[in-house]
């Protein structure tokens, strides 16, 4: 009397457990497939290889910058110094023309003064000679 009922419940339990295991297995498979798709989509979106082909130095600099930030170097005095230097370098093209104009004017002024000295060289020497005597 008790045997069939016991076997029946065990069979149902086994069947239920098997179904659950199958369900978990299929869910895991789906999850794996989705993860693979996501990774391939991410790869396509980032397209690191092609980017490395096109801009190798920029990509290396970007990777180094990411590593620098991950290493905790963002809020440091070295970063502040670097940022200040970067601002100066970025501002240089803006003030380059002004610097060239300044240099040209100073050079032309120097040339004019040396020319005038060369043309009137006899007078000052006589003056200095008289003052020295």
């Amino acid at each position, binding site marked *: 009397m008790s045997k069939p009922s016991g076997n029946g419940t065990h069979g149902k339990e086994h069947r239920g457990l098997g179904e659950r295991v199958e369900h978990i297995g299929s869910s895991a498979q789906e999850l794996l497939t989705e993860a693979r798709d996501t990774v391939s989509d991410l790869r396509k979106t980032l397209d690191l290889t092609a980017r*490395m082909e096109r801009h*190798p130095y920029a990509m290396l600099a970007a990777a180094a*910058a*990411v590593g620098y930030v991950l290493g905790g170097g963002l809020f440091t005095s*070295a970063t502040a110094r670097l940022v200040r230097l970067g601002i100066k370098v970025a501002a240089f093209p803006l003030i380059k023309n002004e610097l060239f104009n300044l240099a040209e004017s100073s050079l032309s002024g120097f040339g004019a003064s040396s*020319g005038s000295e060369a043309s009137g060289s006899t007078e000052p020497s006589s003056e200095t000679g008289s003052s020295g005597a």
Partner: protein
Amino acid sequence: MDATQQLQQKAREVQEKLGPQLDEAKKNLSDFNTRFTSFVRARPGVCLLGALAFGFIVGRIASRH
């Protein structure tokens, strides 16, 4: 002699002295650039990871100071 002429003469002399050396340096730099970019293109993952590691180490050093 005028000062500008003297300056020009000096500049010409410096150019004559440094010209070949500059050309050589330019050629060497161009060769290095070609080799480096071909290396990076051949091994992009390694180079990216290397740059990341380098930046991480520099960041660690900077955060300690």
